[in-house]
């Protein structure tokens, strides 16, 4: 044991990374359908390792937590601000009801059982599985103006409360969303998911990540010219509406360039690309479709462009299609438009605005010409924009320093709340502008994972000895209060959701409920049961809101206890 001690003393980081690695492994073990998750796993391991005695200074803790919470805000920002509208009043109310009832239950029960501020906040963190509360509550505790020893004790208790209640918090959410809710609603998740899908099929088809349509809009086909003999390439292309493109011509076994003035002869082989409707319509006027012609395939590009040309702003797609010169739009097809990450319908009357992201499809030469006219090409870089990120964090931490006084109660967001807020704003602004401030998905994810788990590990390492003591004393009470804080708010929210907010589709409701608890494992189970992506949309909205609301419970629990 002493060699371990010595290594930890020489390189304390080794203990930190060890807890992370082993913690994530333990977090992945399946207990039935349930996993502990990396954060709770890391905390457990850290408490164990701390019994050997490790001395990690706390400096890295606040940096990691700031990075984590900024990344959470950055990720949810676009969705969060999008949800703040009339169309999602139900979801907003659902998330608010859950957060409020969660706060009440935690505070009232902790008072009734005589637990301290730290344990109460910890129970809120664990029973509602909102690990970020550990950080925001710890912040708030530090600002209470208590003696350093007492602060340390309370902060350690936050971790204890979290660790004891987390498992049931995660498990209880699954039971409520997957087992209780369908019984309560009287209909299964799967059947309602099918019903909702059929209702949605009438509109735009929504494809999940990695999915594509079996019948894509744009097709490429090869024809042997029989009917179009004597016509030019330009003539064939422009006679069709919507337009088609002749990308390649083969004559006598040789590939020739398909310039607009090129005159087609009998038995030329042509590659036609265009919208399915147009290609089918023109097929008869060209000739017969061919099988397996050599050398006719062409590599195509799919490019995302941010609209920044004033001449395109506020014009409809139909207007643009009708008024852009054929030689400009030649060979380029708009296959999608998104605004703030949400797909817009590809209809004639859809209005294009500056800042929209337009996805175009075409050969390299053609797309290069058109994209420069539309705006900036979004290159999917793996690099994070550190100027933007650093600025966001500085702003957030500064906001966290501001203290408002209402009467005698000091109200402050703390660095956690401040960084969350600035993350939301910076994430939202980035989604609007697109040309700067990139932070790719993998980077956001690693900041969230490393940030929170690293933070929790430092907490666990520095408070492990005391944790064992507290659990011996209050363990069972904490656990029971945790069960109540998990179940009661969800049941109340479920009742209000059905009878006041009129949720009547079980699949949609299950998604929304899982989201308002920001319960990812429960959502995973709901998706499993639904077997389609119907619950995803309501989940995404309530999840973004809950991530913010529940995180802010930390300081509130501390203030009201």
């Amino acid at each position: 044991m002493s060699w371990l001690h010595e290594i930890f003393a020489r390189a304390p980081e080794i203990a930190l990374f060890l807890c992370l690695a082993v913690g994530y492994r333990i977090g992945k073990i399946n207990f039935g359908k349930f996993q502990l998750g990396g954060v709770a796993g890391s905390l457990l391991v850290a408490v164990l390792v701390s019994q050997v005695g490790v001395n990690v200074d706390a400096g890295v803790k606040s940096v990691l937590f700031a990075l984590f919470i900024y990344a959470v805000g950055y990720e949810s920002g676009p969705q969060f601000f999008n949800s703040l509208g009339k169309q999602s009043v139900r979801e907003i109310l659902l998330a608010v009801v859950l957060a409020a009832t969660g706060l009440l239950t935690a505070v009232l029960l902790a008072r009734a059982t005589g637990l301290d501020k730290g344990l109460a906040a910890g129970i809120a963190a664990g029973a509602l599985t909102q690990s970020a509360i550990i950080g925001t509550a710890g912040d708030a505790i530090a600002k209470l103006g208590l003696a350093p020893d007492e602060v340390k004790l309370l902060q350690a208790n936050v971790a204890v409360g979290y660790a004891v209640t987390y498992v049931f918090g995660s498990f209880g959410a699954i039971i409520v969303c997957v087992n209780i809710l369908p019984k309560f609603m009287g209909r299964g998740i799967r059947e309602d998911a099918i019903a909702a899908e059929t209702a949605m099929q009438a509109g735009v088809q929504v494809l999940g990540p990695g999915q594509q349509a079996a019948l894509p809009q744009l097709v490429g086909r090869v024809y042997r010219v029989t009917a179009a003999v004597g016509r030019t390439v330009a003539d064939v292309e422009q006679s069709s509406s919507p337009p088609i493109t002749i990308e390649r011509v083969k004559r006598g076994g040789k590939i020739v360039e398909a310039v607009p003035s090129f005159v087609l002869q009998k038995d030329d082989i042509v590659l036609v690309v265009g919208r399915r409707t147009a290609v089918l319509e023109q097929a008869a006027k060209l000739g017969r479709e061919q099988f397996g012609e050599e050398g006719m395939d062409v590599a195509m590009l799919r490019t995302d462009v941010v609209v920044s040309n004033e001449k395109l702003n506020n014009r409809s797609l139909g207007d643009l299609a009708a008024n852009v010169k054929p030689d400009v739009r030649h060979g380029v097809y708009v296959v999608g438009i998104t605004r703030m990450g949400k797909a817009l319908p590809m209809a004639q009357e859809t209005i294009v605005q500056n800042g929209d992201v337009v996805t175009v499809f075409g050969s390299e030469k053609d797309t290069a010409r058109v994209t420069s006219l539309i705006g900036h090409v979004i290159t999917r870089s793996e690099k994070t924009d550190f100027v933007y990120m650093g600025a966001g964090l500085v702003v957030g931490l500064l906001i966290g320093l501001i203290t408002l006084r209402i009467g005698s109660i000091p109200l402050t967001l703390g660095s956690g709340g401040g960084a969350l807020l600035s993350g939301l704003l910076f994430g939202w602004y980035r989604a609007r502008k697109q040309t700067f401030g990139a932070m790719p998905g993998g980077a956001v994810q690693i900041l969230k994972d490393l940030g929170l788990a690293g933070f929790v590990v430092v907490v666990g390492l520095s408070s492990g000895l005391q944790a064992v003591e507290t659990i011996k004393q209050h363990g069972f009470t904490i656990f029971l209060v945790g069960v109540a804080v998990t179940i009661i708010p969800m049941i109340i929210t479920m009742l209000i959701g059905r009878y006041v907010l009129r949720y009547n589709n079980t699949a949609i409701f299950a998604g929304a409920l899982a989201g308002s608890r920001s319960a990812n494992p429960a959502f995973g189970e709901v998706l499993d049961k639904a077997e389609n992506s119907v619950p995803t949309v309501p989940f995404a909205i309530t999840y973004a809101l809950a991530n913010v609301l529940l995180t802010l419970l930390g300081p509130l629990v501390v203030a009201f206890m």
Partner: protein
Amino acid sequence: MHELQSVLQETPEIALFLALACGHAFGRIRFGPIQLGGVCGTLLAALAIGSLVTITPAASIKNFFFALFIFSLGYAGGPQFFANLNAKGLRLGCFCLIEVAIVIALVLAATRLFGLDQGSAAGLMAGAATESAVVGTATDAISGLPLSPEAIKNLQANVVTAYSITYVFGLITIVIATSQLFPLMFRIDLRSEAAALWKTMSGASAEVDATALRALPDIVGRIYVVEHAAGVSIAELELRGEGLRVNVERIKRRGKLIDATDDMRLEAGDYVLLTGMREGVQRCGESIGAERDHVSGLDFAVDTRDVILNRRDLHDVTLDSVRRRAQREGIAQGVYIVSVTRSGVALPMLAGLRLQTGDLVRLQGLPSEINDVATRLGKIVKDSDETDVLFAGIGIVLGIFIGQFGVKLGGVTFSLGTGGGALLSGLVFGWLQNAHPAVGNIPASAIELMKDLGLSMFIACVGLSSGPQAFALIKSYGIALPLTGILIALLPAACSLVFGRYVLKLESPILLGAIAGQQCSTPALSAVVSAAGNTTPLLGYTITYAISNVVLPLMGPLIVFLAGQVAPQ
């Protein structure tokens, strides 16, 4: 001012992130072809903030981010590094040898001449060779020296100061030398040579990559209305692809969607959605009736999965027989193999292509069936944003652990330190993951983040705490450090130029690229590429870069040790 001071001291994170933001903003500013880059910018910003306000960030921040950085550096370079350990790579590897040998000799000479301490010597090397990672490894090595904490802190501050003074000069020198000076001296017409090289290399016709977006994808879906095929069963219809797979997923009959079963018989006026291999669908479709462009409700989503083939009984079996076997066993009606990739190269999808275990097979098909098929073939590779923290964590733990062991060489303990250890484990883990994609997963953007954020935060910590001493050092050495920096940047590059031109007889664009790479200088590369007019210099750059990127950081501890030996007592 006083206000600011107390805020920054109370919350040192703000100072760190401020240095990060300002530094990267400053590092982006272009001075002609020169850009300082985020790391050097961060250091300058941190030194500036540190000289105004006394802040000492906790040691744990520095150590944590350093470990992240150095592991990621190795991880990102691992596959390239091991891939270049072949005859061609080792030939160009001579450049790295030249770089290392001359740089060390010059730094040691300067150490002797100007009486530099170990910290300044290491900083001089890091700056002149524009290799910021050396700052990390050298600082790390210094912390292991048997000195008082005060002396260690001084030496570490000298590393960053010497680095920041010489970096600018080193950077400008290498950019101008590779892109302007060398071509001029040897009367090289870089542009025309690069164009000629481009022509000889692109001789082979450009096949469309199987995994790229194509105008004529292999798998298609089409809707036909039943005219001639009334009474035919679905099973019979699916055979009309003449050996090429065709599937009927759904039928729309009198406005209602029906899931297709094998023995169901078509009726006139049914809409049928066929999916499958292009030619099969075409053949089969023509026998049914006219094609339709859109029938509402018939479209559905198809999923894609990447699988690492691990079934031994499918090793060395042709694609064609795999397909037939699947058909016989009645599985996977709606799932297709779209591409097969072997060690990073997409293979032509011929019927006779023999699969090997370890191939990356891309499947496309119905969401309900694809997982079943994928798990039958092997392990699914998740294209996920999620980092396997277990994998990364173990790598870092092992690295730091290895670094703790010392080897006694002639009475002096020589250990890799956290820097060397984590770099090594990163290399191995990166290579391992690349060779076995099913093991671990660290997305590229996560590696980039850990690498850049790790080094920047580390540098910011060091910079903040050494701000006050920076000016003292600048005063004491004056012009000597910058001049030495220029010499250290120029001489190895010049030697490599002569060696590459007269001994290895390399084409000039490749040679100049390789020289940029031996210094790990991305700015120099971009200057060479823009002077050459195409990307041929990359052919040399990637190889020397992959090697130097690993070897140069390891020189940090070495120079600390050697400088201690040669320094005038």
